[in-house]
């Protein structure tokens, strides 16, 4: 076996090993730590691309951990969807990390009640201990979750990425952050409990944990077990919905994302997508066309909830009083849009959702990063929507804000528009169309209105500064530019990319291939 045969596990093992190395290097010169962290994160890119390449022809790369056959051992399954998620994660991680390395932590404003501190402001990765370790292990958790083909293993990786995210979320501390973090942690712990109840029940009925095997077993569920497995599958949905922040389980998100540090919030842009991914992965397998009592299980739930989430997200964005808060609500809205696509379930809709997924990830991440620069540039006014001093380099930052806002609002010519276009087009065939269209279109408009108001307040309605404010460094803006470049890339390469997502969607709507690839050896 060459290293290439281990391709499916490399994106998982690499961050783990690097995480361990970084624990070892915790007292080494900072440059070395950073170098290792950046190199490792960058290295995920070629790996993800190689996986895209390897799965591009429809192959399911099945990696049998411990060399045990499929339903017994744990398998990793890399298909187009997994590769797509990995690539998105890797790209996002690079920029989030770069930002953490270069941008200085904002001075705590008097409002947050922290004492003023003297001395040079550190960058985010120096604001607390173990940033890089936590960051790498977060990637370990994310990549593991995207690749696993085992339901319980998914739980384990959920926990890894959650615990790493707790550490990252609370990194640096502070009153509001700790409060938001406490909520985030507790609600997710309750969620994990539910995950176990659901997995347990599924095992108790089917006697298996492998997702492909589960799909087979569940499809053959006898009628006297129907409600039981439906119940379990819906509970599982509840867990994923919580991670995805689907209504009514949204409430943890706005505070958590708004209060954490900018690079972490940016990285978290992918976190809700894990929930969405899981919904897609699991229910495309166990609730597909020929899934016995589970057929169409989520049909009645997902779309209305996602639409409500979208609406609530936009309402929150309209009502927000600071940019970070608004961005957090926009994350909610974007997840709503994404899940509308997943909920519609047709191949076209899935393709639209999958195209929209990296877009919304990059766009909201960019907005988080930019909000941080803005907050720093406006001194004590931070990112609150109040008339404040004109920030230094307002033209440049304002221009970036405009571009990012266009992306987030889903306006042309950026990829958000294309995603929504694809989504609306796909919705045409669906009975949900009379609901999807008005909500998606109306919330799009609300997003424009809300962001126009924010931009106008932050950049236009200014008075002269009475104090010297720090200008945002190029280094802090570069990741934003980078993410924007990715979004532009999504537009320019929309053809091939949408073909890829269409192929991915086709793969997902025909789960039999997945099942055969995983169980082929055992049967």
């Amino acid at each position, binding site marked *: 076996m060459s290293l290439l045969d281990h391709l499916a596990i490399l994106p998982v093992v690499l961050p783990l090993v690097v995480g361990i190395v970084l624990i070892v290097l915790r007292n080494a010169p900072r440059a070395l730590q950073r170098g290792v962290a950046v190199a490792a994160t960058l290295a995920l890119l070629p790996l993800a691309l190689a996986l895209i390449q390897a799965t591009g022809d429809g192959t399911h790369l099945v990696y049998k951990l411990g*060399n045990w056959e499929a339903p017994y051992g744990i398998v990793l399954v890399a298909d187009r969807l997994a590769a797509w998620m990995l690539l998105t994660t890797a790209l996002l991680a690079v920029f989030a990390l770069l930002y953490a390395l270069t941008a200085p932590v904002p001075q705590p404003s008097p409002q947050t009640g922290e004492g003023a*501190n003297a001395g040079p402001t550190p960058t985010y990765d120096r604001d607390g201990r173990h940033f890089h370790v936590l960051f790498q292990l977060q990637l370990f958790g994310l990549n593991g979750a995207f690749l696993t083909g085992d339901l319980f293993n998914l739980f*384990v990786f959920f926990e890894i990425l959650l615990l790493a995210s707790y550490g990252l979320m609370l990194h640096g501390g502070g009153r509001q952050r700790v409060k938001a973090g406490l909520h985030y942690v507790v609600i997710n712990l309750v969620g994990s409990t539910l995950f176990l109840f659901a997995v347990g029940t599924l095992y108790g009925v089917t006697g298996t944990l492998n997702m492909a095997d589960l799909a087979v077993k569940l499809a053959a569920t006898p009628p006297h077990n129907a409600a039981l497995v439906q119940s379990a599958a819906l509970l599982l949905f509840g867990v994923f919905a919580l991670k995805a922040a689907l209504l009514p389980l949204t409430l943890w998100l706005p505070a958590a994302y708004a209060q954490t540090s900018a690079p972490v919030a940016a990285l978290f842009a992918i976190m809700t997508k894990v929930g969405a991914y899981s919904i897609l992965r699991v229910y495309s397998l166990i609730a597909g066309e020929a899934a016995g009592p589970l057929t169409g299980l989520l049909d009645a739930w997902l779309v209305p909830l996602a639409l409500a989430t979208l609406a609530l997200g936009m309402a929150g964005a309209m009502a927000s009083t600071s940019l970070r808060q608004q961005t957090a609500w926009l994350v909610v809205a974007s997840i709503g849009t994404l899940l509308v696509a997943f909920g519609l379930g047709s191949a076209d809709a899935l393709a639209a959702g999958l195209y929209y997924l990296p877009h919304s990830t990059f766009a909201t991440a960019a907005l988080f990063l930019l909000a941080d620069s803005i907050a720093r540039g406006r001194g004590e006014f931070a990112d609150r929507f109040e008339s404040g001093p004109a920030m230094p380099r307002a033209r440049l930052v304002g221009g970036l804000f405009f571009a990012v806002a266009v992306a987030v609002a889903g306006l042309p010519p950026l990829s958000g528009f294309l995603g929504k276009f694809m989504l609306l087009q796909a919705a045409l065939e669906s009975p949900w169309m009379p609901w999807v269209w008005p909500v998606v279109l109306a919330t799009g408009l609300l997003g424009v209105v809300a962001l126009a108001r924010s931009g106008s307040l932050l950049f236009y309605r200014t008075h002269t500064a009475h104090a010297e404010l720090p200008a945002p460094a190029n280094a802090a803006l570069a990741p934003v530019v980078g993410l924007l470049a990715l979004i532009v890339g999504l537009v320019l390469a929309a053809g091939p990319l949408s073909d890829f997502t269409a192929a991915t969607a086709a793969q997902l709507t025909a789960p039999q291939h997945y099942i055969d690839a995983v169980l082929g050896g055992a049967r």
Partner: protein
Amino acid sequence: MTLFLAVLIPFAGAALVALASRLGRSLSAWAAGGVTLASLALLAPLAPLPFAGETLVQQQDWMPALGLNLAFRLDGLALLFAGLILGIGLLIVLYARYYLSERDSMGRFYAYLMLFMGSMLGIVLSENLIQLLIFWELTSLSSFLLISYWQHREGARRGARMALAVTGLGGFAMLGGFLLIGHIVGSYELSDVFASGDLIREHPLYVPTLILILLGVFTKSAQFPFHFWLPHAMAAPTPVSAYLHSATMVKAGVFLLARLWPALSGTPEWFWLVSGAGLATLLLGAYVALFKHDLKGLLAYSTISHLGLITLLFGLSTPLAAVAGVFHIINHATFKASLFMAAGIIDHEAGTRDMRRLSGLWQYMPYTATLAMVAAAAMAGVPLMNGFLSKEMFFAEAVHIAEGHLGGWVLPALVTLAGAFAVAYSLRFIHNVFFNGEPADLPKTPHEPPRWMKAPVEVLVVLCLVVGIAPALTVGPLLAVAAAGTLQAPLPDYHLALWHGFNTALMMSLVALALGATLYLLRRPLFAWHERTLARLDARVPYNALVGGLVGLAGFITRTFDTGSLQRQVFLFILAALTLGLVPWFAGGTPLTGGRAGLPLDAVSLVAAAALILATLATVVWHRRRFTALVTLGVVGLVVSLAFIKFSAPDLALTQLSVEIVTIVLLLLALHFLPQHAAPEPDRARVGRDAAIALTAGAGTAALAWAVLTRPYDTIAGYFLENSKPGGGGTNVVNVILVDFRGYDTLGEITVLALAGLGIVALLQNLRLTAPLRDAAGRVWDADAHPVIMATLTRILLPLALMVAVFILLRGHNQPGGGFIAGLITAVALIVQYLASGAAWTHQRMRASPPHPNPPPHAGEGANAGPTPTAAPPSPQPSPRPGEGANAGPTPTAAPPSPQPSPRPGEGANAGPTPVYDSHPLLAWGLGIATFTGLASWAFDHPFLTSTFGYLNWPVVGKFEVASAMAFDLGVFLVVVGATLMILTGLGGLHRAEPGTKETR
């Protein structure tokens, strides 16, 4: 891809212009002009094609699968608009160069202008509807930037946002409309759409399609009731108004009417909706324009009115009306742009646009006045001007359409009335500004503008005249191709001439002129009446109320939903889970109880279960008596482990027991720093509600458990039982599953543990808590920190416990036990030392000795080639606590417990008074060993974590097993010890923080 390039040039030019502005103000103007010319030059050679009756379509794949391609089209209509955009654009560039003041950033202005120009060109040259929409939205965005150009002005900001919101609304609606068209036709290409006109009109979705598209059109072209944004957009610099709000952007709406005319028009719905809105707008705009005191306000409403006129023409659905519409588009662009520029000149030179202050400017700027008068005459529809010609055609069509209908006089009467108002406001524009006595306290003394500021106006005014006098010679061919492009069909028979004889239309024109003059003469009573009545109606009020209401509603929803309360979140989550879990059962058909026989009940179990239930209840009831609750929780844990034992899970029992104790220790540590008395419950209703949902949740899980337990199942477990020994080399199947079959889970699990440790370390940073000096009852703590008897005895226990840990670790593969339990035993044994002898004492002793027993040699000699910790006692660590972080020097390395852990020189310098044992190396070693064991299988061409085992037979010792899984388990062991110690010592170290220490980052 010439067309594509022509559209692209302004976009690229925007960047160029912005860059050029760094080199000089005029340079950016030159650059902007150059860009416009370049685009023009690119298009010019293609112009003959439409004249030859050809339609140029250029296409490039973008998202072919979705029907979205880069496709451009040059036909007559496109050519006309492209010409208008670029031609007038060029004039505006010139004009703005002189209009903008020193304080205004030229580069920004021209960059925005170029963006807009490119977007506008994109709209008119698009072949693909979705692509058209993209450019459509881009015009909204770039006009937002242009309107808010003077961002320090409140009006500009508001106007820009309003314009964006209203046109944005239209854009989103139009997206829907286009998608429906695409759905009906199967393509977004205009060529296909034109070919499917009948298909569209007969489709059941025709009406929604039409309404959605018209929403886009009406918002963009400021049609009633969406007209109100346009006057507010006048806060923009005048060149912007002249360009966007007369010649181009607002024309995008009517352009679209023209563009989709072949596909959508000809139905009653089209007729009523379009011409209705047009007529209303025509009248309203004309009426309001008369009463505006702001020059630009007057022009804005006039624009609205004329756009209504054009809309009305397209709404009439006859080919001739469409031709008239196209014609009026041209004419309106010329005269209105020139009027705006004239207004800008007046504003620029006189310092105000308020007609109540302006008057008698004729004597200061006669030349400008002349130009303005000619243009205003065109606006009023005075003969010899181009405005007259199209208005004539319009009147004729209005009469023609109304003929033969009951009440056929209504439409002609109304349009004549509108014409009269147009005459009146044009008169007012001229008379009020240039005559009507002397000017009153103007900010500046007016004078003629610079030469080149007038030039654009001159050009346009000349056009007005030339077209007005000799239409057939000048505009005739262009109108013909443009109209042909609109109709996508042979042109109707029409005749462009100044004189058509005495017909109805001429009569209407004359009536309008006379009536208009009368209206103007009667202006004083009219103004007074208007002030009292209709002036108070302002469309902005409902708009603001709507937006305010939306924001308020959004705030209300958000606040109602998101109260920032964790309890609410948890409540919602549990409610959601209950709903999800219960819903499937309502369908019926699934019995709760299955057919599997159960085990008989026995007394001991009953007692134990009763104790567990009571202890749980006690914990719940006494949760505010915290210490007691903790003790009862201990009982719960104990009975749970008993249950594990009872039902054949010794491994679980061992684990549960150890975890239980460590958790209690943790909770005790926490309890010390938390308030000792709980706050009272807020209200009984809350408690009742929570109790209800808790009981429901309990009942739900109990039912779920019951449902599963009473059902038989097939499991994959047989495989594990069969393969555990032959395949995994161990007889304890649970352990083999953990380290082998599902070793990957375990790797993840220890990562979680390590993460918990690391996360806690990060969390503890800067954490300062003051420990209470008295207990809950107010007693001072006992003075004896480390009771001698306890300390002595626990020291004896340590080696014993370590021995047991090694035993448990080694046997794990074959008997209940394993790395996790062994790790916890070790950690607990060390914790007892902390408990009994104190942190300082223990840390001192742990510095030089490994806190874990040296693993037996053979455990390290399996597949795992890594150095065993035997060789590597963790090196001494200085305090990693941040409080002591004042030491700037590099903290001594710790890191990989290398085989020769020689401490760096100078290390002792920053070792604080109470050294803290650093568990990081343990953690790193543990994770490292586990991961490396997994990776080692790569060397043997096996997947990650493939295990291997064998039997060795040594003299004296005898035969024993060596398995790579054991090395993995060793890793688990080390992580558990490391993480547990890290957590507990971190927490235990809290009190050492002096109270009141200032936090430092």
